[in-house]
């Protein structure tokens, strides 16, 4: 089974005080990592390869800094990697990104294409499904379990409130992978060593099948400005020593909660 998995390098803003500058956030000093959902997708791709044979190719959009994400895919077990990189990609929205990725995917032999269900930065949760439509592939989104059998994929989709839905798709197909589908492995030093000898293929807009009039700043949508979310509720922060805070909070639980 030849599998393509799309990955994205994202800043980790977990404990960061995000600074806005224009239409971007200031990522200086922030650690970067592979989008969490993509880690699950890469792990799933490598597991399928280990089980059924074939190859795994990782694809990303970005400048050379995004090679981090591809090297990590190599270290996990990917066989090949492609980075599509062009200044005219800047400003692409979810559908435009899907068009760029689909352009790269269509030139590579594939039985299965995996995307993370969403990215932790812009959180569209849309790129994979849009790419499926562009590529004309059957697809399933939010997959939390999958089994391959005889040219078919049986995928369990996560719905709301703990309910799941099972669907069956013929290959080739595209899936977007939800977190929790597996436990992504740790990166080994052997994997890093192997990755170091592998080459990342870099393709510009002219080298993939994409209409540049529909991507980048020609995307259907544009981010006009970023701003901090309005405060919905004035939180009363408890201060003092740990002991003082504990006593105050216990009293609140007793008075307001009436819990004991």
């Amino acid at each position, binding site marked *: 089974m030849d599998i393509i998995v799309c990955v994205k390098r994202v800043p980790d*803003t*977990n404990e*960061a005080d*995000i600074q*806005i500058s224009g239409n971007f*956030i200031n990522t200086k000093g922030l650690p970067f990592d592979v989008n969490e959902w993509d880690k699950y997708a890469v792990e799933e791709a490598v597991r399928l390869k280990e089980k059924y044979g074939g190859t795994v190719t990782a694809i990303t959009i970005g400048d050379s800094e995004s090679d981090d994400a591809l090297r990590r895919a190599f270290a996990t077990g990917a066989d090949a990697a492609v980075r599509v990189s062009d200044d005219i990609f800047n400003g692409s*929205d*979810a*559908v435009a990104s*899907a068009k760029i990725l689909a352009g790269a995917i269509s030139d590579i032999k594939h039985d299965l294409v995996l995307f993370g269900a969403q990215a*932790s930065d812009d*959180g*569209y*949760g*849309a*790129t994979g*499904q*849009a*790419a*499926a*439509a562009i590529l004309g592939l*059957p*697809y*399933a*989104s*939010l997959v939390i379990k999958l089994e391959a059998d005889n040219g078919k994929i049986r995928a*369990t*989709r*996560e*719905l*709301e*409130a703990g*309910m*799941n*839905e*099972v669907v*069956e*798709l013929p290959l080739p197909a595209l899936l977007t992978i939800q977190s*929790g589908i597996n*436990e992504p492995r740790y990166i080994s030093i052997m994997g890093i060593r192997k990755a170091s000898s592998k080459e990342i293929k870099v393709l510009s807009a002219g080298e993939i099948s994409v209409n540049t009039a529909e991507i980048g700043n020609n995307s*259907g*949508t*544009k981010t006009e400005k*970023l701003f901090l*979310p309005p405060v919905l*509720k004035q*939180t009363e*922060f*408890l201060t003092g020593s*740990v002991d003082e*805070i*504990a006593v105050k*909070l*216990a009293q609140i*639980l*007793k008075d*307001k*909660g009436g*819990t*004991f």
Partner: protein
Amino acid sequence: MSGIFVVAEHRKGVLRDITFEMLKKGRELAGASGESLTALVIGKNTGAFAERIAASADTVIAIDDPKLENFNGEIYQNILSAIIDEHKPLLIMIGHTAAGMDFAPGLAAAKNIAITTDCVDLKLDGQKLTAVRQLYSGKINAEISFKPAESYIVTLRSGIFPPEPSGTSGKLLSAACPDFPESAKRFIEYIEAATGTVDITQADVLVSVGQGIGDVKNIPMMEAFAQALGASLSCSRPVVDRKWLPQERQVGSSGKTVKPKVYLAVGISGAFQHLTAVKADIIIAVNKDPRAPIFNIADYGITGDLLQIIPKLQDAVLKLKGGN
């Protein structure tokens, strides 16, 4: 070109709240811009849905076909594609849900219509649409504009707009189901949520733990604390993803919606999928990061090391209890 269309969402014979939430917002936009509001309901036996929806829309188009018994995103895309061609709506609103997320992006890509997803607000000024959505798990909001075009698609976040009917008596239209090619995707079955041993939806007090507790080894400590407080232990999604607690304990859109008197969130940063499922009288949050979105909904906040705070809090609670 004109008209606001809302794609109704239903599953297993039940209309979902998001339908009315979208109609509420759609009505507001329609009122401000003079557009009409049309609801689309696609499925098998959609008549009853259409009648209910008529109280919130100017027109309801119901497509009723036995082949549409189970949801299939590809078929939705085909049907909506034909409807868009016929009606050329200005705005198509779809839920940012497991169903809406499934078909909306592909519909937009296939029709080359601009889309933005997971919107928390929309503004329509004449034909000019602006959307507000969130980035970085709710830490930043973004204002999104659309390139001028005939139509736009948006998906709306659940739980943002109140699902109230607007009291209209909309026109009911039943439309023939457009032809669509057979989908390669086959529905197999629904799997209901496993019934667990603990029902967190019935708890008066919940101690809810997130990734911030750091280690599965801290679960027993949190359990002991919950017990001291007379609370049940629940959690956020990352805790389930890491297999620290079973899925039956998960609070969130893919887990359970809870409505306790007191919700004590410990080490939960507060992704919207989590926040939307917490309907508590009082929310208390303990988190290392003072900028965590959980503090946007918390009544009381404590920033600091939860592993230090929780044992002290347990002591303080036991002391107060002893005093009774």
